[in-house]
């Protein structure tokens, strides 16, 4: 079974075992970005106490008898030698993993059909990731890009770094055109050590340039996780009246009768998603499609999987 499918099944299993995740509409009503991140992460982690995800960290916590489904790599063979029983080690250990969150602030991210725009959803996800990483003592940095790097916060594990991260996120506004080639190349050139790259974007750019840029990170030895954030409207195309569609970034206008173009559009977006899934998966890059009506915790679980593999 492919690795990605396995992870998706595991995420689904977690969702089944833990409480229901917070609806993004609820998250949208929370005050600050910090509060949103804290609520999401703490809620997720409290659920994870009863889940097989415990142990992604590297700080030893306790031994536990092996049960079916546990990762065989976590079995402590020394203890097995001594006791002839299978025990697995549970860790909560510091790491030197540096993670860079790349958030797309191009104009297209401003689209919203629900409480959270794609950008707000992405910012909330980035904040939650920052909160989670900080809590796990991973180094976390932030870069915002459209057709260039708009803002950058270097990765750090210092106390108070999360605050800087959240302030930077709060100051971001979506606006310009997307062109990932240049900023991705700049980021890739700036990477000095292996780490983890998390890209949060709607990827509405030239797919070839996007894949090429992401492969750059991978070639540099970094684990790459891509969150492809789309609004439900961009997937379902639910419009019913003849409408003049105006592009966020180029101001290009297209008159369309939804009934006539829906099938074509849905095929086009489906092909795009499938292309990213296929080409990124083939390049060893984790790809996660996020719909802004999905709970953000889903993305965090995907991160945790990638993080576990990285460690």
């Amino acid at each position, binding site marked *: 079974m492919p690795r990605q499918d396995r992870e998706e099944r595991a995420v689904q299993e977690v969702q089944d075992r833990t409480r229901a995740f917070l609806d993004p509409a609820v998250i949208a009503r929370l005050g600050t970005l910090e509060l949103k991140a804290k609520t999401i992460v703490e809620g997720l982690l409290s659920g994870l106490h009863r889940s097989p995800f415990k142990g992604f960290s590297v700080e030893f916590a306790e031994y536990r008898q092996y049960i079916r489904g546990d990762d065989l790599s976590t079995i402590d063979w020394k203890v097995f030698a001594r006791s002839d029983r299978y025990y697995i080690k549970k860790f909560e250990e510091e790491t030197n993993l540096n993670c860079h969150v790349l958030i797309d602030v191009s104009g297209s991210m401003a689209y919203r059909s629900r409480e959270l725009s794609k950008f707000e959803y992405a910012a909330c996800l980035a904040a939650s990731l920052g909160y989670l990483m900080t809590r796990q003592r991973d180094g976390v940095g932030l870069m915002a890009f459209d057709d260039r790097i708009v803002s950058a916060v270097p990765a750090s594990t210092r106390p108070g770094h999360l605050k800087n991260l959240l302030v930077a996120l709060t100051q971001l506004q979506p606006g310009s055109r997307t062109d990932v080639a240049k900023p991705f190349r700049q980021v890739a050139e700036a990477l000095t050590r292996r780490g983890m790259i998390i890209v949060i974007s709607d990827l509405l750019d030239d797919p070839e340039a996007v894949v090429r840029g992401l492969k750059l990170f991978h070639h540099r030895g970094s684990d790459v996780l891509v969150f492809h954030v789309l609004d439900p409207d*961009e997937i379902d195309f639910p419009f019913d*009246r003849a409408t*003049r569609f*105006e592009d966020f970034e180029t101001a290009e206008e297209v*008159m*369309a009768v939804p009934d006539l173009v829906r099938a074509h559009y849905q095929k*086009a*977006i489906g092909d795009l998603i499938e292309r990213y899934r296929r080409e990124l998966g083939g390049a060893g890059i984790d790809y996660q499609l996020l719909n802004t009506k999905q709970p953000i915790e889903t993305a965090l679980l995907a991160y945790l999987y990638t993080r576990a593999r990285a460690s």
Partner: protein
Amino acid sequence: MSFLSPLFLIGALAAAVPIVLHLLKREPEPRVKFAAVALLRHAPVERTSTRRLRQIVLLALRVAALVLLAIAFAQPFVPLAATASRRATVIALDTSFSLSAPGRFARAQRLAREAVAQAPATDDVGVVTFADRAELVTPPSADRGLAIAAIDAAAPGFGGTRYLAAVNVAGRALGTRAGTIVVVTDLQEGGWDAGDHASVPAAAHVEVRDVGALPENLAVVGLRSERDREVVTIRNDSPRTRAVAVRLSVDGRPAGERSVSVDAHASADAVFGGITGSEAVAVIDDREGLQADNSRYALLNRSSRVAVLAVTATGDLDRDAFYVHQALATGDAGGGSLEVAGIAGGQLGGWPNERVSAYSAVLLLSTRGLDRRGRDVLASYAASGGGLLIAAGPDVDGDVAADVAGAGIKLHLVAPEERRNSDSQSLAPGDVRHPIFQPFGPATGSFGLVRFTRTARLSASGCQTLAQFTSGEAAVIDCGIGDGRLIVIASDLNNRWNDFPLHATFLPFLHETVRYLSNAHVKSGEYLVGEVPSGVTPAPGIVTIPATATARPRRAAINVDPAESEPARLSVDEFGSAIARLKEAGVAEARNVEQRRESSQHFWQYALAAMMVALAVEGVVARRTI
């Protein structure tokens, strides 16, 4: 294209509404900022040019729907070609047989051709021929050759002159446009009937081209049977006494020849005795006068026997209809002896129609046992020329009598309540000129001596009331049923509801009634040329009338109308004054023509259907646009 109600076209101004809305709402489509517009580029999106075209189509459809609605209400129609703006001249050429004298019709054709030649060059010219009926032979057109050809092809027939039909058809041919109606005729006085109401357009001018007075003429105006002889009546319309040989043929064989001398402007009879046969024709030789009236046809009915059938409850006349039987067995009716037969109502259904038709009159005195078949036999008998009497006595059911009379008459008989003697009524003839009462002369007052203790309430549509009771209710009515007659008496004839049979007036009343009904039976075999039933050629002769749903085939004599031979004439001024009086109806007639034209075309329905289609298409296009 014209409109019957053009004011509704003002409603087409509503078409400005979608135009204004279109101009005010230049960009009605919602605008949505969308991130994945790039993915729509290759979809079948609507290009600007296509969208503009759609909007123009939409606007056109909406405007068209409103305009079509206004047009539908305005009731459009395509007028007759003759109602175009060009003036027209319509030649109405008389083809009645009064023009059949040598040289007369040639003169009429010459006058008609002159009228064509004298018509203004800008006029269209049409031709109408007329006698009893009028026919538009050539509608008004610029091709005068057609009109000349129509005039040359016309020939005098056997019909009488009827100006009403001629003027109406010529007026309709003109329509609403200005023009002239030229009537080429010999101005026969009988051409206008009292009460005729012709219509010509208000802008029509009527001219008369007089063919001239009738020449000296001898006409056979009558051929009738009197007991054992045949009488031929000759009329001399000339200022001198003339002798003429009258030849009679019966069943195709010569039956005799008589010479008679007829005084100036008088009539004389030629009498033929000892004639046997049934189909006779009397002929004279009058080469200078009208040709069509030189012969006359008749079905001979010399039988001295007048057979009467009385339908009673049992068929026993002495028991059921004693007084009727005794009255009819005494004396004669119309010169022949009366033979009365009785039949029970229940037996009549078994009789074939031919057996009943042998009777000159049928008296329905009881409807007891008269089944459906029996009612149909009586109805068929009356419709085919028989004479039927219904005496609404105690044995006559109103519903059965109504069935016999047929749906066309709507006979309504209601059985009476019992009356005390103090409430008895008498009968008063209302039309003393009617053949039943005419022989009584001043003695009609004698009917007032008859006491009616009970009377049925009687009503029917299209019937003449001959006598009334003192209460004002109808006592005797006379109705036409097909070719026959129906007399209904609102009481009985057997001394039960009245004492009529005990009075001296009873016997002559019954005889005159039977004679009147018998004449109907005989006369059903005579027609004038202008009155022949459908399917029969309108020409003099003895022909077979085809069978109908209610009547069997029968022989009939067809003759020209003797009134057409009468020399009395209208002056041109009299004719003109009649036309002038009719002119005022021209606008109304034109309006009627337009209404008939519109109702025959029903273009408003097409306009409404087109509007519905436009709205449906608009709905589809609008859904795909905005």
